[in-house]
């Protein structure tokens, strides 16, 4: 199910492209903000949940998920170089699964890890808030990577579609329409964070079981469908 060569090509492609700078810029911003707040206002649990919930989990994780998820396959399909992967006796689901693993790894490394560090900077992991948000970021990384990887196989405008989903759906509608929150990766991940953190520190719109079932379900379904799409990927002629 996992192919080391596909993985190597994928992460070198991901980290070698210009948009990779956003992978470094966003976590750096989070750490700078956290350090500044700690210096200015001191350790405070409310500030920590505001920053980690409002910026890290709500904005940074989905954005990095878009870059890593769509970037793991979109550019190759766009420029046609995916031919060199596809003209090989390698099972299509293996290609997709490997790319998912790389996208999850990159997203988690550039979002869950900085979230944990920011949490410790903000309040020294009081009430387990740092760990809770880091775990939420890690599980959200999995679902986001799967969703955006699928987007990368079905549309040439995957980055735009991903941004619309991440910013408009998750952030805007999620805040305005209560019903939309139950269909949000962020809320599912928060259900887990709620369980880990101290009583009442973090709240989610969905229950733990529901959140986990939806996370796993979406990840599996998106990955399966992406594998199917890749199997019948049509490369339009140059004519």
């Amino acid at each position, binding site marked *: 199910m996992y*192919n*080391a*060569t*596909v993985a*190597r*090509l994928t992460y*070198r*492609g991901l980290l*070698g*492209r210009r948009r990779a700078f956003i992978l470094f810029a966003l976590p750096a911003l989070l750490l700078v903000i956290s350090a500044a707040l700690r210096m200015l206002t001191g350790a405070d649990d409310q500030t920590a949940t505001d920053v980690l919930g409002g910026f890290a989990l709500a904005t940074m994780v989905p954005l990095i998920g878009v870059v890593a998820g769509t970037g793991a396959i979109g550019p190759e399909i766009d*420029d*046609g*170089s995916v*031919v*060199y*992967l*596809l*003209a*090989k*006796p*390698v*099972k*299509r689901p293996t290609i997709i699964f490997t790319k998912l693993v790389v996208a999850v790894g990159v997203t988690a490394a550039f979002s869950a890890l900085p979230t944990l560090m920011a949490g410790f900077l903000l309040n020294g992991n009081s009430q387990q808030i740092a760990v809770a948000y880091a775990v939420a970021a890690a599980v959200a990384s999995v679902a986001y990577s799967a969703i955006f990887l699928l987007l990368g196989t079905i549309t040439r405008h995957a980055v735009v579609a991903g941004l619309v989903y991440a910013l408009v759906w998750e952030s805007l509608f999620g805040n305005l329409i209560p019903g939309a929150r139950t269909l949000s990766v962020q809320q599912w991940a928060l259900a887990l964070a709620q369980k880990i953190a101290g009583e009442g520190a973090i709240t989610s719109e969905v229950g733990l079981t529901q959140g986990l079932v939806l996370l796993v379900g979406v990840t599996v379904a998106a990955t399966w469908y992406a594998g199917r799409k890749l*199997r*019948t*990927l*049509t*490369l*339009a*002629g*140059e*004519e």
Partner: protein
Amino acid sequence: MTTLRIDNVSRWFGNVVAVNDISMTVGPGVTGLLGPNGAGKSTLINMMGGFLAPSTGSVTLDGQPIWRNEQIYRHIGIVPEREAMYDFLTGAEFVRANAELHGLGAKEAQHALATVEMEYAQDRKIATYSKGMRQRVKMASALVHEPSVLLLDEPFNGMDPRQRMQLMDLLRTMGAEGRTVLFSSHILEEVEQLAAHIEVVVAGRHAASGDFRKIRRLMTDRPHRYLVRSSDDRALAAALIADPSTAGIEVDVHEGVLRVQAVDFGRFTSLLPAVAQAHGIRLLTVSPSDESLESVFSYLVAA
């Protein structure tokens, strides 16, 4: 695994028919797929390479379907027309990755790089390669598993004459080894130099198939039109029409030219100067008026 069969294949994109009911069999040796731009060559090659499903009909390699059959790539090597190829890798890394995806290793990759004579630049990033160098590294990536079928889409585009000769030699060798080599081109001379067998595609239809000499003869034997200006058009017209190599002559009084339709190309080209000299007529202009490749192709379709 050497015989590609295309059986009553059509492919359309929306309302546009790109390939219209084509059947052909491509066996060992070098075959040229010839046709003007937009004729459907790339569509055909994409179907043979398993990157496009035929709308109707079947594309098979020794009876096995190619579409949605990734195991078939053990026997097929593909050299795509598009330039893009993991530019952030070096040539050696790229060919090595292709070898690994076939379950092979560094030894096979090195052998393939040597075959295309790219060892000298193998440690440079592909992004720095010229078009010809890219083409050769693409070749190496397609050859790394010693496929019995090699498909190349417009492989000579952008190559300089020396690189072109080199690639032609390589393809000839592969054909002589009993592999099935199919390449597409819109340039008659390229196909003529390399392929003994050609398939001509025009406007999505299979226009001609077979031995190059036979098709070349069809092309040269078609009625040729010439525009002739001379010191005495009428006298020249009278002398030319007496010979069976001409089928018709129009004296265009307005333009002051002769429009000649020749049916025997070889005979007419030696007849014209001889007749002019015998009658003391000076030839001022002799120009073929429909030598474009498109007119050659459209004649083939009609034939």
